[in-house]
C-alpha cells in the first residue's frame, strides 16, 4: 500500500519532470542556430503577454506582416528574412535576458522592438555594449541620442509641439496637465510646459498620478477649480484609463482634452463606449481611421487584416514597427550587406521609404525619422475627424537645441527638455 503510493507519486513527478525537460529543450533548441547562408535573422522583442500585450501583439503582427512582404518580394540579398521573436512578457528583466540571447546565442543581425521606455532603457545599454543595431519603433518622450539606436516612432516635437500650438490657438491659453507619474509622463509634461510657454499660454495646473491610482475625484475637482481651456492627459495603463469615465461623468466635457498617446496607440475610441472619449485631440503619425483618406494607409490596413483577421486595431505603433523594418530592409539592400557599420552608414545617408501615410525618412543627425503627422479629434460618437495635416515634420530638437550630430559626435544619452 505504502509502496504503491510512492510509486504513483514517483510517476507523477517523473511526468512533470519529463514535461519540463522536453519543453525547455524544445524551447531552447528551436532558436539556437545563428543566421546561416540562406536566411537573415532579425530579432524582435515585443510583449505578447502581460500589461503591454495590448500594443505588443499589434506590433508583433505588424513585424510579421513586414517580414512576409519582404520575403514575398524575394527577401534581402537573395536570402529569406526570419523573425526571432521571444515573448518579453512585459517584464524588463526578461527583456534583458532575451536581448542577450538574441545577440550572443542567436546572432541576429539587428533587433527591433520594445514598447515602454523602461524596457527600451533596459536593453539599450546591452545593444551598445555588443554593438548591435537597434530599432525602437514606438512613439516616446524623445531625447535619445545613441549611435546604435534608430527611433522610428513619433517624438514630442512632432506631437506635443504642434498639438499645443493648435490647442492654445483654437481654445485658449489656460492649460492643465495630468500625467502618469513615471518617465514618459514626466518628460512629456515638461514638453507641454515648454510648448505652453512658447505659444504664449499659461500652465494653470500640473499633476502626476501614480500608475495604480484609479479614483480621480480630487483630481477632477482640482481641474475644474483651475478652469483650464485645454486639458492635457498623458495617462498610461489599466488603472488610469478609469479617469476618462470619471471625467465624462463628473468633469466638464466642454473642456477639450489633448494627448499624445490615446486613440492612436491604445484605441480607446473603440474600447470605450461613447461619449467617454469625446472631444479629445491627438497628434499621431498613423491610425487605422486614416485609411478613408490615404490610399497607402488603406493598403497597409487591408494587408494587416487580411493576415490577422481577428485583430482589433492597427495603430500608430504597429505602423512604426512596420516602417522600422522597411527602413532597415532598404538600408540592407543599399549596403548590400547586413553588417552593422555598413547598414548604419546606409541609414545615415538619409534613407527614405514610402510608408502608409507618406514618406518616412531617417534624419541622419538624430537617428529619428522625418514623417507626416496628423491632428485628429473625436466627436461625440467617438468618430475620428482629421483636423490638420503636417507634412514632413522634422525631429530636430536634439540637433538644434542640444547640438546632437550622431555621425560626427557619437554618444549614448537621453536628453530631457528641463534637464541636461
Amino acid at each position, binding site marked *: 500500500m*505504502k509502496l504503491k*503510493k*510512492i510509486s504513483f*507519486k*514517483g510517476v*507523477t*513527478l517523473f511526468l*512533470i519532470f519529463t*514535461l*519540463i525537460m522536453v*519543453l*525547455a*529543450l*524544445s*524551447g*531552447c533548441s*528551436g*532558436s539556437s542556430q545563428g543566421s546561416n547562408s540562406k536566411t537573415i535573422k532579425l530579432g524582435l522583442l515585443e510583449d*505578447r*503577454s502581460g500589461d503591454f500585450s495590448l500594443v505588443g501583439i499589434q506590433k508583433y503582427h505588424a513585424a510579421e506582416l513586414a517580414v512576409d512582404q519582404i520575403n514575398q518580394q524575394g527577401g534581402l540579398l537573395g536570402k529569406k528574412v526570419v523573425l526571432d*521573436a*521571444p*515573448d*518579453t*512578457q512585459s*517584464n*524588463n*528583466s*526578461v527583456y*534583458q*535576458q*532575451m536581448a*542577450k*540571447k538574441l545577440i*550572443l*546565442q542567436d546572432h541576429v543581425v539587428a533587433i527591433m522592438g520594445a514598447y*515602454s*521606455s*523602461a524596457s527600451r*532603457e*533596459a536593453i*539599450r*545599454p*546591452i545593444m551598445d*555594449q555588443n554593438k548591435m543595431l537597434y530599432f525602437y519603433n514606438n512613439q516616446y518622450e524623445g531625447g535619445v541620442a545613441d549611435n546604435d539606436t534608430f527611433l522610428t516612432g513619433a517624438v514630442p516635437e512632432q506631437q506635443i509641439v504642434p498639438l499645443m500650438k493648435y490647442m492654445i490657438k483654437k481654445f485658449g491659453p489656460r492649460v492643465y496637465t495630468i500625467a502618469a*507619474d*513615471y*518617465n514618459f*509622463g*514626466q*518628460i512629456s509634461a515638461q514638453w507641454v510646459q515648454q510648448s505652453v510657454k512658447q505659444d504664449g499660454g499659461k500652465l494653470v495646473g500640473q499633476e*502626476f498620478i*501614480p*500608475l*495604480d491610482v484609479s479614483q480621480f475625484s480630487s483630481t477632477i475637482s482640482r481641474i475644474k477649480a483651475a478652469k483650464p481651456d485645454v486639458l492635457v492627459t498623458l495617462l498610461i495603463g489599466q488603472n488610469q484609463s478609469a479617469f476618462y469615465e470619471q471625467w465624462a461623468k463628473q468633469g466638464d466635457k466642454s473642456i477639450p482634452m489633448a494627448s499624445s498617446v490615446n486613440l492612436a496607440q491604445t484605441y480607446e475610441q473603440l474600447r470605450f463606449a461613447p461619449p467617454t472619449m469625446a472631444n479629445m485631440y491627438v497628434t499621431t503619425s498613423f491610425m487605422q481611421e486614416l485609411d478613408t483618406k490615404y490610399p497607402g494607409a488603406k493598403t497597409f490596413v487591408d494587408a494587416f487584416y487580411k493576415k490577422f483577421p481577428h485583430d482589433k486595431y492597427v495603430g500608430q505603433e504597429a505602423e512604426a514597427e512596420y516602417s522600422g523594418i522597411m527602413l532597415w530592409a532598404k538600408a540592407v539592400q543599399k549596403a548590400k550587406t547586413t553588417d552593422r557599420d555598413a547598414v548604419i552608414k546606409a541609414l545615415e545617408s538619409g534613407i527614405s521609404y514610402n510608408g502608409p501615410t507618406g514618406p518616412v525618412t531617417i534624419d541622419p543627425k538624430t537617428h529619428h525619422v522625418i514623417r507626416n503627422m496628423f491632428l485628429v479629434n473625436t466627436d461625440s460618437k467617438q468618430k475620428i475627424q482629421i483636423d490638420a495635416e503636417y507634412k514632413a515634420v522634422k525631429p530636430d530638437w536634439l540637433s538644434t537645441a542640444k547640438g546632437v550630430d550622431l555621425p560626427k559626435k557619437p554618444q549614448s544619452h537621453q536628453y*530631457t527638455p*528641463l*534637464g541636461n
Partner: protein
Amino acid sequence: MVQGKIKTENIVAALIFFFLFICPLFIDSYSVLNISYFLSMAFLSLSLTLIWGYCGIFSFGQAVFFGIGGYFYAVLTLNLTGTSAITPLGLLLGVILGGLAAWILGYFMFYGGVNDVFVGLITLCLTLVLSTFMGQTAGSAWNIGQVSLGGFNGINGIPALELGPISLSGNNFYYFVLIILFVIYCLLKLFTHSKVGAAIVAIRENRERTKMFGYNVPKIQSLVFAAGGALASLSGILYATWGNYITPSAFALSSATIPVVLVAAGGRKNFTASIIFTVLYYWFAQGLSASGSQYALVILGLILILVTLFVPDGIIVFLFHLSDRLFFHRESKMKEVQEEHLHEKNIG
C-alpha cells in the same frame, strides 16, 4: 541537522558544483552569462530558505532588500566612477546595508511580537510602498549626487564589478558568482550545524518553548532576518552588475512573490533544493519565453499548482528522499509526514 544525513543531497550538490566549475570549458559564452544570472538569483532563494525554511519567518519582502542592494550599489558606484576599488567596496557596503535594513525591520517586528503570516503581510506592504515610491522618482528632483533615480526606467549603465585590474564580466563574473555561491552555501550548511543554527530550528519548531531554554528569540530572529536581508541584497547587487541595470520592478508584487514560490516548490527547508529549483525554474521560464509560446505562463502556473498539491514538501526534496530510499535504503521521514497529511484528509 536531519537534512545533513541525506546522502543524495550531498552527492547531487557535489556533482552540481563540480559541473558548474567545469562547464564554461564546453558551453558557449552566452550560456555562461546566462547561468551566472541564474546563480545570482539563487542567493535570493537562499535568503528565503534561511529565514523561512530554517527559522520559520515568512517574508514577502526579500525583494525589498534585493532592490535596496541594487540601488545602493548603483548610486554609490555611479557617483564615484573612476575611483579605484569602488565596486568591491560598493558590493560590501551594499550587503551590509541590506543586512542593516533587514535588522531594523526585524527589530521593529519581532520585538513587537509580530510573527507568522503577519510578517508576510508587513513585508508585502513594504514592498508595495517602495515600488510606488521608486516608480515616481522620474523627476529631476530625485537625484542622489550625480545619479538620477530614474523612476520606472530605473538606473542604467551600472558599472560591472572590478577586482583590481580584473573586470568581472563573462567567465570572470561567472566564476566570481559561483565561488561566492559555493562559499555561502558551505557557510550556510555549517551554520545550520552550529549553535545558532540549532537555535533557529528550535525557534521554527516551537517559538514559545525555545524562549524557555533561555533564548532571546526576537534577537535571534532579527539577526537571522538581517542575514537573509544581506543575502537578498547580495543577490540584488549581482543582478544589477549582471545587467548593468536596476528598476523599481525589482520591488513589484511579482518580483516579491517569485522567491516565495521558488522556495516553496523546491523544498523550503533545504538549501541545495532551493538552489537547484531556482536555476531550473529560471532556465525553464527563459526557455518558454524564448520560444515565444503563448502557453508559457499557463504551463508554468500549472506546474506550480501540481507540485504544491502532490509534493507539499517541495519537488527537489521529494526527489532526494525518493532516491535515498531507492539507493541507500534509508528510512525516510518523508513517509510519516505524507501519511499524516493523508490522515488529516481522510477524516471529515
